[in-house]
């Protein structure tokens, strides 16, 4: 069992001005699940791109041995011909094509006439789908599937290419817990069939559950490879390798002293924008000054939909219910009205909904409150710079200048820019939707510190998160949401991951 299927030796990859990988050596045993973890920007994805030929042979130093033979991949096609298939974090499926069309995309099965035999292709696709445990008709367009099922289609696609080494980049980042569990089961099953798997993940609990070995990458170097079978490797142990220091307390301490109620919604009901179903039904919740309230729920529970509908009716239709700010009923029919009423919403997808990536830090920070910097429609550009500079200092945004383009910053720094933007609107209540998604451990800690500072300054904060430990570590009170309804509310002292999960799945089972 201990023979090596893949060896990457002394890989060094540089980009103009940066060394992304330095002298990285990685050995993967045949038939194992090998996890790779490290902070964002540590070089995990770059290493996998070198392996899969996205960065062609010659653009890096070092050598790759696959099955003991040196490989020089000039592109993805070369690596796939050898049975190495990579599934990227952002899935590469064509939304309006069917499952079968996606599976055989670029790998079409032609009949004798030279035309594609779709009956054969669909039948083949059905077999592949069965092997990944996805019960869908192969002619279904991919856009109709949820992210979890799309992930399975990607794996089926990899299987169609006779995969021997499967690389998954953050496979569960966008999945809910049930889909994640299913995916991990599937990976175990593939392992039984002798498929070797490299998995990049931020979710340490998954790594400890499934991986046979774990390589930790830090600042472009392979720090260590831990044998998960023999060593007593805990999550804390992996974190120590990633950040090079122990996080004695992962969540910063905070004195909790909630004041008056700031925001309350009653009987909030939202219909899906196109389909005829309720996404949020009869939800009531409140948050007080100096309080952090969490909303826990699985994917599809309606968390983001609830938040966005409250924030200037940015989601859904037929929105009914009452909204109170400081005890006074208000109407927030547009985003501008919501902002005027002191509500801020930090979106879960900062790249798509939070930032103008091609513009600079300065103008992103001022984007939601330009009226505070302008008189009679004229923007005071110098005051704007001053505001951006002070955000940069207070938030510790690591950028060479506030004139730097936001798209070039790391995820954590981008998130700080989004937070700066909303803080500049001087809100009373901040709704933070997945505030630490896709950012590294160090930046997460910084975000938590910022949240604590806001709460200490008397702001009310609502945190929506898929990570239960995060909610337990940060919140004063937690609501659980399932299928658009509130299924529970408890002070954090009474909550555990198990009790929350029970409430989060409660309604789901009833609804089916």
């Amino acid at each position: 069992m201990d023979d090596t299927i893949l060896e990457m030796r002394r890989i060094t990859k540089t980009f103009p001005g940066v060394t992304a990988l330095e002298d990285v050596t990685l050995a993967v045993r045949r038939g194992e699940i090998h996890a790779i973890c490290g902070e964002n920007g540590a070089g995990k994805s770059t290493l996998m791109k070198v392996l899969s030929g996205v960065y062609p042979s010659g653009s890096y130093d070092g050598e790759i041995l696959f099955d003991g033979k040196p490989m020089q991949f000039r592109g993805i096609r070369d690596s796939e011909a050898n049975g190495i298939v990579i599934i990227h974090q952002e899935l590469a499926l064509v939304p309006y094509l069917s499952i079968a069309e996606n599976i055989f995309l670029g790998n079409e099965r032609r009949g004798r006439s030279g035309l594609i035999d779709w009956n054969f292709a669909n039948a083949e696709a059905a077999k592949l789908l069965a092997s990944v445990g996805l019960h869908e008709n192969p002619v279904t367009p991919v856009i109709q599937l949820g992210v979890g099922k799309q992930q399975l289609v990607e794996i089926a696609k990899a299987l169609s290419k006779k995969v021997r080494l499967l690389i998954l980049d953050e496979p569960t980042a966008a999945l809910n817990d049930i889909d994640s569990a299913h995916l991990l089961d599937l990976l175990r099953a593939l392992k039984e069939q002798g498929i070797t798997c490299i998995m990049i993940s931020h979710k340490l609990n998954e790594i400890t559950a499934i991986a046979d070995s774990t390589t930790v990458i830090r600042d472009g170097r392979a720090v260590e490879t831990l044998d998960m079978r023999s060593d007593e490797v805990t999550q804390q142990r992996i974190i120590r390798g990633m950040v090079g220091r122990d996080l004695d307390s992962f969540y910063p301490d905070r004195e909790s002293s909630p004041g008056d109620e700031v925001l309350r919604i009653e009987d909030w009901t939202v219909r899906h924008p196109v389909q005829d179903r309720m996404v949020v039904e009869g939800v009531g919740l409140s948050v007080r000054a100096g309080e952090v309230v969490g909303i826990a729920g699985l994917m599809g529970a309606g968390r983001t939909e609830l938040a966005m509908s409250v924030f200037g009716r940015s989601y859904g239709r037929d929105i009914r219910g009452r909204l109170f700010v400081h005890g006074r009923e208000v109407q927030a029919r547009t985003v501008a009205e919501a902002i005027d009423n002191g509500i801020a919403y930090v979106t879960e997808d900062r790249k798509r909904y939070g930032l103008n990536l091609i513009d600079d830090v300065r103008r992103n920070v001022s984007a939601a409150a330009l009226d505070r910097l302008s008189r009679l429609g004229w923007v005071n550009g110098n005051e704007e710079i001053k505001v951006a500079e002070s955000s940069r200092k207070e938030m510790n945004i690591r950028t060479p200048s506030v004139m730097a383009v936001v798209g070039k910053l790391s995820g954590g720094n981008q998130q700080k820019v989004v937070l700066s933007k909303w803080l500049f609107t001087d809100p009373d209540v901040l709704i933070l939707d997945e505030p630490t998604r896709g950012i590294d451990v160090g930046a997460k800690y910084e975000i938590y510190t910022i949240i604590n500072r806001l709460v200490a300054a008397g702001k009310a904060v609502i945190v929506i998160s898929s990570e239960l430990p995060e909610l337990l570590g940060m919140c004063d009170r937690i609501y659980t949401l399932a299928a658009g309804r509130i299924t529970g509310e408890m002070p954090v002292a009474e909550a555990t991951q198990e009790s929350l999960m029970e409430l989060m799945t409660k309604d789901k089972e009833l609804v089916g």
Partner: protein
Amino acid sequence: MTSIKTPSTERPTPPDSPPTAALHSGTSDLRALVLNNLRQSGIYVALVVIVALFAVLTDGVLLSPGNITNIVLQYSYILVLAIGMVILIIGGHIDLSVGSVVALTGAVSAVLVIQQGHPWWIGVLAALVVGVAVGAWHGFWVAYAGIPAFIVTLAGMLLFRGLTLRVLDNISLSPFPSEYQQVAAGFLNGLLGGQGFDAFTLLIGAIAVAGYAVSGFRTRVARIRYQQPVESFPLFVARVVLVGAVLMYFAWQLAHARGLPIVLIILAVLVLVYGLLTRRTVFGRQVYAIGGNLSAAALSGVKVRTVNFWMFVNMGFLAAVAGVIYSSRSNGAQPAAGNMFELDAIAAAFIGGAAVTGGVGTVVGAMVGGLIMAVMSNGMQLMGIDQSTQSVVKGLVLLVAVAFDVYNKRRAGTAR
């Protein structure tokens, strides 16, 4: 033009330091400066190269006083259209109908002034009203009905061309009374006298240079007070001197021809106003925000529909201004007037650095882009090159300009 070196790290300046600090600060690293501004400076360099090339090829005729005046008169309406067009392109839209709108507004004006004998200003006013109405029509369909601008304005292109034919009854109208002709063919001349040249033109030129220098210096002082990076003082002076010299040369040549064209004054005012509008106003910012990331803009409280609507109203207004200038210059209204103007205006915006995906572009860039097209057309006409070759060359220049821009962006490793 700024460099990215921060003076605060290099030479700390207290926030309330006196303006004299403006004399000593910033970087002199010309190479860094040029590289940092390659994207913007690229088109200036291209303009200079093209002007020099055609000046040589035409034995200096290109830069003769008469011809410079000619270029201004001949391409002013394209530049006016390019102002509105670049704003739409920054916002992620396009307008294919401006040629038809130029024709329609000119036709309405001609019918009122030539056929019905109303005074010239009634014609101008009516043209502007029609232009704004057309813009509101487009704006309604794009902003409130949610139809892509490409489709709405493609329909508008046909629609307003048809209406032009209707208004003109399929015939050309001409000539306009002399006051109306003044808009495009008039000059301010002899107001101050001069020996074989027009002193008034030179005075206006000098005022423009002084204005440029003073506003540049004031911006610089303010930036330093806010501890922002600025170019080094010698470089600042060099830039002002260079721009001043070009402006004064231009004024000198005009002064030795027929004086200051009225249309140039109109154009200068528009460039100034719209330059400020795009860079310094909330509206301008919102246009960039919408073009850069529509969803993020909407979730930041930008009233996307309202902004989109007014972008199109503005385009309609500027198309009407161009319509008045064009009808004045051609001294009448023709059913086929303004054909293909939209393409010249769009080309000017893209050559001037606007991005196809929206969110990027400047009014000044579009003007330089328009001038590149103008100098090329004019130069090739002077050389007697036929229409077919001109078209081929212009097409290739557009392609190369955008390809260069894409290449540049990729090399810079921008987010997209």
